[in-house]
Structures are given as C-alpha cells and as structure tokens.
C-alpha cells in the first residue's frame, strides 16, 4: 500500500441535530474541544500552525469571514486560517487543502474542520440556500431544487437499471439502523421500508425519508505530518490516497445522469495513490444526501458493478456485518448533514473505526477506510483512503 501523506492524530465531533441557541462558532468550538480533549499530548496554542475550515453558506447566520472568527473562538490567533467552500463537500476541500500544506512541509500540525448551522432557518429557507449551489439562471430559475436534481438522477437510474423505490428506501433504513448506534447522530430512531415509501413526496421518486435532514453540527481533525504523528498518539490513522475532480456545475450538461464522473475520477486517483482497490476497503463513509446518491456511489467506487447498487444494499452487503459496511455513522441521512461539517465528519468516523473506538458500530478488524463526499449535483467530488497506522 501507498505511504502516508499525512496522519490524523485526533478527531472531534459535536453532537449533530437541532442545536437550538448554538451558532457556528460555538458548534465549531465544541468539535475542536472534543479533538483537543482526546489528544492530551497536544498543546493547541503551541502545536497547531494553521486552521483549514469548510463552511458552505454565509446566509444562515448572516456571517461571512468565518475563518478568523472560528480561529479566535478556539484561542489560536494569530495563526493563519483558511476557509474553503465546495457546497456539501466544503470540509473535504479543507482536508485536501490541508494535505497540500502538510505535503509541502509548510506546516506539520494543522487543524481541519467544518461546520454549518441550519435548523433555525425554515425548511423552505434551507432549500433555497442549498439551491444556491446549483446554477441560478438555468436550474434555480426553472424551479429545480436539490431534491429535484437527485430525483432526476434517480429516475434515470431506475429507467436504465430497474432500480426500485424499495431499494432506495433500504439505504435509508440501513443508515437509520447505523445512526441508532451513534450517540452523536441527529436521528437515533429506526425506520422501516414502509415508513420511507409512505413518507411525503419531495421530488418523485424521492420522498421525505429518502432525503437527509437539515442539521446543526461541526467536526474537527488534528492532522500532522507522518513524522510528527507519534509525538501525539500511538494510534494514528494515515491518509494514504486522495483524489478530487470537478464536473459541470449543472446536471443537464452531462453525458450520464446515473453516474458521478467526479467520484469515478477521484476514486481512481485515490486508489492509485494508496495502491489499493475497492476490494481492500473495510469500511466507507459515503455521501448519502439522498438515498440514490449512496447507490450511485457504490457503483462509481467499484463496490459493485454498474447498475447493481440497488441489489448491493438489498443483499445487506453494506450493512454492519456485511462485506463492505457503509455509513456506519448513520451517514448524512441519520447522523445528519450540517453541510460544511460533513466531509471532515466522514473522516472522523473513519478515524474512530480504524482506531477501534466506534463502540457498538465498530467494524471488527477494520484497517483500510474510505470517504466519498460530493458537492452540489456532484460538481465537486473528493475521495480519501485511510489506513490504520502500523
């Protein structure tokens, strides 16, 4: 396998969900404190040289220029802070940027995170803010929402491969089962296929329970050079592969609506650098903003053949205990999707899994993990491969 690019030595995550009265600065502080508390050998003021933080929208809180704000609130001024935006992949962009910083040897200890505060805004308001990540004059102007974009992907997938609404529902059911095992998840309750099928239509064939919720939350990682990792922990998790691609901002201009080119390219890059194949992955966090997105991700990542994603979930292969458990955290669907926090939160879950700290949702013996995070209609796609430090 490939050598380490950088090492995660600690991970922190806030409780995800409806966090009434707490804003991004406080949620981010909660995640950062969690990461600091887990790493007693870290002196943040002395050791952390920079912050890389992802957040999608300034509209929720009427607050821009958040990089210095978050840095200030965790007491790390005057270190430099970088804010990245890639819609739902904002903090995966932050993580990848931080990898460049480490690999360039500019820094050797940095903080990477993400945050979003959404639940104080109405569902309609959130729909409109999220829609800003699609093309305004041609998608938003035509009344196309994000569920609408993924609804069109789902219709294409069903038409081409015979994927069923029941198979979509099984992704949601699985991720709720996993979320119920994660005390930080937004939803802790189990749902049935029937619950999904009978839930309100949002953008046919996607129903309410095919869609991730709006959530509040933050996530944080302490990332170091591989050489520095042992100073902070005996059990680092190494990032051994990274990939990143962009597609058209809009869905309409693509050759294929039932595959995500960015995920195919980013995973090829990450697998190649890590010198692994899909078969080597023991546990994965995937971008299930809508159930169809997880099914498409299975195929684009090579977890199954093209068109067989619905069958893969139906067979239980991606369930805890299955061949390739996905979204053990509950995924965006049950853990929640505070947009900017999601990418780094996926990395947090893989860190917990590969350090054997995932408690009731632990994948036994997991050594190699993967995260797949997409922004917008898969206009941004980022894949990382992780390996337990030897």
């Amino acid at each position, binding site marked *: 396998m490939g050598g380490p690019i950088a090492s995660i030595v600690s991970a922190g995550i806030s409780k995800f969900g409806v966090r009434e009265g707490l804003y991004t600065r406080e949620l981010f502080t909660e995640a950062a404190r969690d990461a600091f508390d887990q790493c007693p050998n870290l002196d943040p003021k002395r050791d952390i040289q920079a912050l890389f933080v992802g957040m999608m929208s300034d509209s929720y809180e009427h607050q821009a220029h958040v990089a210095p704000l978050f840095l200030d609130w965790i007491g790390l001024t005057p270190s430099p802070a970088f804010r990245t935006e890639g819609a739902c992949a904002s903090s995966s962009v932050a993580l990848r940027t931080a990898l460049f910083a480490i690999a360039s040897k500019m820094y050797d200890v940095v903080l990477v995170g993400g945050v979003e505060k959404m639940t104080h805004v109405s*569902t*309609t308001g959130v*729909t*409109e803010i999220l*829609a800003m990540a699609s093309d*305004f*004059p*041609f*998608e*938003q*102007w*035509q*009344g*196309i*929402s994000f*569920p*609408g974009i993924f*609804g*069109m*992907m*789902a*219709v*294409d997938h069903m*038409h081409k491969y015979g994927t069923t609404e029941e198979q979509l529902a099984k992704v949601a059911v699985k991720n709720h089962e996993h979320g119920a095992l994660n005390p930080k998840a937004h939803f802790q309750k189990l749902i049935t296929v029937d619950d999904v099928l009978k839930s*309100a*239509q*949002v*953008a*046919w*064939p*996607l129903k309410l329970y095919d869609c991730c919720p709006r959530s509040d939350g933050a996530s944080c990682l302490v990332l170091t050079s591989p050489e520095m990792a042992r100073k902070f922990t005996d059990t680092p998790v190494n990032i051994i592969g990274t990939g990143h691609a962009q597609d058209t901002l*809009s*869905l*309409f*201009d693509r050759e294929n*609506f039932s595959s995500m080119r960015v995920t195919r390219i980013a995973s090829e890059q990450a697998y190649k650098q890590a010198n692994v194949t899909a078969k080597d992955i023991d546990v994965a966090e995937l971008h299930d903003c809508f159930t169809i997105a997880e099914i498409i991700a299975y195929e684009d990542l090579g977890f199954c053949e093209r068109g067989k994603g619905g069958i893969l979930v139906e067979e239980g292969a991606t369930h805890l205990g299955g061949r390739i458990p996905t979204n053990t955290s509950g995924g965006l669907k049950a853990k929640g999707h505070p947009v900017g926090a999601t990418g780094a939160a996926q990395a947090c879950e893989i860190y917990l899994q590969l350090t054997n700290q995932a408690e009731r949702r632990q994948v036994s013996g997991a050594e190699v993990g993967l995260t797949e995070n997409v922004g917008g209609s898969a206009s941004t796609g980022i894949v990382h491969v992780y390996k337990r430090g030897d």
Partner: protein
Amino acid sequence: MQKTSGSLTPHEEEKGRFVKDQTGAILPTVENFYTFCAQRKLMAIKCRQCKAIIWPPRGICPKCLGTQSDWIELKGKGKLLTFTVIHFPPSQFQAIAPYAVGIVKLEEGPQLPGMIKQVKLSELKIGMELQADFETHIPKEWPRWPRYFFKPAD
C-alpha cells in the same frame, strides 16, 4: 445566423436590450440568452472553430476552447432524457407545486433543463417528444428573465 461579432439588424436593435461589445456584437451571455427569449427565440451559440453547438452561451467553447462563435436559433424540439416531479419547491414556486421538471435533448444536440407544462404528471415518460415555448411575463426587477419551458410536441 446572427454573428456574436457583427452588427445587429434594425429589428433586433428595436426590441432588444442586448449587451454588446465595442463592435456592436451581441455577446454570448446569460442575459442576452434571456433577451432573445423575450423575442420568443431559443438561442445557442455555434463555435466557429469546432462547430459544436454550445448551450448555455459563453465566451469560451468548452469542447475546443475556441473564442469565436455565432448565435444560432434552436428549433426547440427534443426528447425528454429524465425528469422529476417537485412537490416541495423553493418558495417562489409554491403556488404551482407539484410541477414537473426535466432535461430535454434538443434535435441540434444541446441538453436543456426546464419545466414541463401542459402534461398530466402521470403521463410523463422518458423519451417523450417535447417542444419549447415561452412565458410572456418579464419581471420588472433583476433578474428580468422570461422563462422558456417545455410542453408536449404537437
């Protein structure tokens, strides 16, 4: 063919609020696309270098990176590639929900997203023949973009 570099016909000067370059050419922009829509014309651009028909109009051809193009009018006829029915819309569309949107592949090649009107939602089908039409309403404030939409072909 209306060149993106070249002079306007009197007819267009009269009706249009086109954004032009110093030579008077209608620039290949979003705003100009919608100004054509106000004239009930669905327009794309054709790259002079690789001859690709590009929509939405833009200054650099995404296929060959050519920068010279001409406006061409699309017939607006095409087939539905995929669709969805939006039940939970952004606020400005709440009055008309549920409504259908889809992606239509036009005969000339471009794939356009748009609302599909004048069809029963239960009768929407991939592959159905559609025809573009235009709303007559032009908003008074930005964005002053009259919408195109699709309806079943005659």
